[in-house]
């Protein structure tokens, strides 16, 4: 079932030198699956996430032929209606918990705020819910963490707290924007596993934005490869190594491999023709009947 359907999404910013297009006409559908979005910096992957949430600030302009959440259009909704979708139905976890948590509010207050905003209810009930969420992300001492400030917890813990906070109102879609890039390698897997389990248990759709191809291949069901604001290729994560687009192949070739060591990794060669080329879609019909 399709949760989110996007057709020909464009995000552009007027500048003195003319209009800069960060996202240039991308289309995809998201079901209750884990969708990876991969690309280098500036390829428009984060901007896509923000456009879905209606968080592109003026003077940025978002247009699309279609942007629907379970059949309802959500493109350029009035702020008031968009606020009821943000957090409640679509949520987002950002890169670095050091910056994405408010430094002068306790963690408990921040989770309770997220939950009560959409679920309402009394404070004690919200507190119980917050404790339950902290336990769900395997925080050992949730009572103490509730009263702690963000600077008092580690990065991995901070990101688990972010996940707990963003999932507290039970959204249907979670956008994870490089959720492990700022974390130590040792806690990445732990955070990912927790996020994975929660997203699966709730039958949510996950948009996992990353520049780490291997991580995405392991973790996601399906991958979109973005280049210069376009999707150049879309394929099942398990088929990543059979990618046909030269850009995807180039990305894969520039990663070191234990099973095929080379003296010198190739440098990624970019071609202008990729900017306008069509999306290569690989046999998705068999994977997702009625999908793209």
């Amino acid at each position, binding site marked *: 079932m399709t949760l989110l359907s996007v057709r020909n999404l464009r995000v552009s910013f007027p500048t003195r030198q003319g209009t800069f297009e960060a996202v240039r006409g991308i289309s995809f559908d998201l079901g209750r699956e884990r969708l990876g979005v991969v690309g280098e910096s500036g390829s428009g992957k984060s901007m896509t996430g923000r456009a879905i949430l209606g968080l592109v600030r003026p003077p940025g302009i978002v247009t699309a032929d279609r942007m629907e959440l379970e059949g309802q259009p959500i493109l350029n909704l009035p702020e008031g209606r968009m606020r009821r979708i*943000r957090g409640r139905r679509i*949520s987002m976890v950002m890169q670095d918990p050091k910056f994405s948590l408010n430094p002068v509010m306790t963690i408990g207050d921040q989770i309770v705020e*997220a939950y009560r905003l959409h679920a309402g209810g009394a404070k004690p009930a919200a507190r119980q819910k917050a404790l339950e969420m902290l336990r769900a992300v395997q925080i050992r001492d949730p009572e103490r963490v509730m009263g702690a400030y963000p*600077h008092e917890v580690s990065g991995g813990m901070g990101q688990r707290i972010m996940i707990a*906070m963003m999932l507290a109102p039970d959204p249907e879609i979670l956008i994870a924007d490089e959720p492990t890039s700022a974390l130590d390698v040792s806690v990445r897997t732990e955070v990912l596993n927790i996020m994975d389990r929660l997203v699966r248990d709730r039958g949510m759709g996950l948009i996992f934005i990353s520049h780490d191809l291997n991580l995405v291949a392991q973790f996601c069901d399906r991958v979109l490869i973005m280049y210069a604001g376009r999707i150049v290729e879309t394929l099942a994560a398990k088929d990543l190594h059979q990618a046909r687009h030269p850009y995807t192949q180039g990305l894969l070739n520039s990663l070191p491999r234990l099973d095929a060591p080379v003296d010198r990794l190739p440098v990624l060669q970019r071609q202008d023709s990729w900017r306008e080329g069509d999306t290569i879609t690989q046999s998705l019909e068999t994977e997702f009947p009625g999908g793209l």
Partner: protein
Amino acid sequence: MPPAPNGRAAARRRRARSIGGTVLSLVLTLLGLLLVTFIIGRVMPIDPVLKVVGDRATQAQYDAAYQAMGLDQPLYIQFARYLGDVVTGDFGRSISTGQLVVDDIKRVFPATVELATLGTLIGVLIGVPLGVIAAARRGGVVDQVARVVALVGYSMPIFWLGLMGLLVFYGILGWVGGPGRQGIIYDGMIPTVTGLILVDSLIAGDWGAFKDAFSHIILPASLLGYFSLAYISRMTRSFMLEQLSAEYITTARVKGLSERAVIWRHAFRNIRIPLITVIALSFGSLLEGSVLTEIIFSWPGLGQYITKSLLAGDMNAVLGGTVVVGTCFVALNLLSDILYRVLDPRSK
């Protein structure tokens, strides 16, 4: 958990050390201030003996006074005596008023405090919201208006604005009381308790005297308030802009919070800390720097007192006033330091 008590003891030690450090730096600052005022007092080309004995005294009288004032002693002994005097609250006698400097300051300082407090209050109550709204609607109408208001506040000479204010609101419209703190009929009618006439008249229950004092203070306080507003609103705006571009603001928006909650509950909470320092410094500068306003409005305050004493070569009064202003500055800094620690969880 075994490490907890240990950690708590360490935290207590750390806190004790940081308080000790603050007090030590406070004492050193005050000592430095006294040293500077002492040296200024000694290097000024004003002969304090001549001021006391007059220019027709004999050499014997002059020498006797010279010794009586301790000027024959080495400088460090003189400084030690000066320190002792200041600590016991003795700044000597003012030559121009003939009274103890301490009594003079007790009389004039409340007038300045009253004016500066009301001015700062006006500056904060209008300047902070103005700065916040200007930052939230960057480039909008409020932002443009705030920019012009601040620019005028920065660049207009206060004596001109003061004179124009008197001309329009007192001379032509008659909305406010004229120069001075009180009208003639209320002068000396209110028993002095705090020295702040607005407070004293309320304590005395004299509504008429309160209204009279208010009508006198409102114009100079508004002027001072306007100047601190200009500064406070600009600082608030730039603090807010910095916070509004922070990642946690995006988090708050992703949660679905209203723009008002994002701005006041999230961003504003983070600027309270630097804002306190700005407000304290602005208040401190009003305590010492409202000389022009005090002169234009015949406000019997500290700025006017120090200026008049300086022109009369009355160094005891000048040094006494300087020490009071300096101490206020140090105390305000200390206060903002303490509030910092209370409000910023990261400093605990």
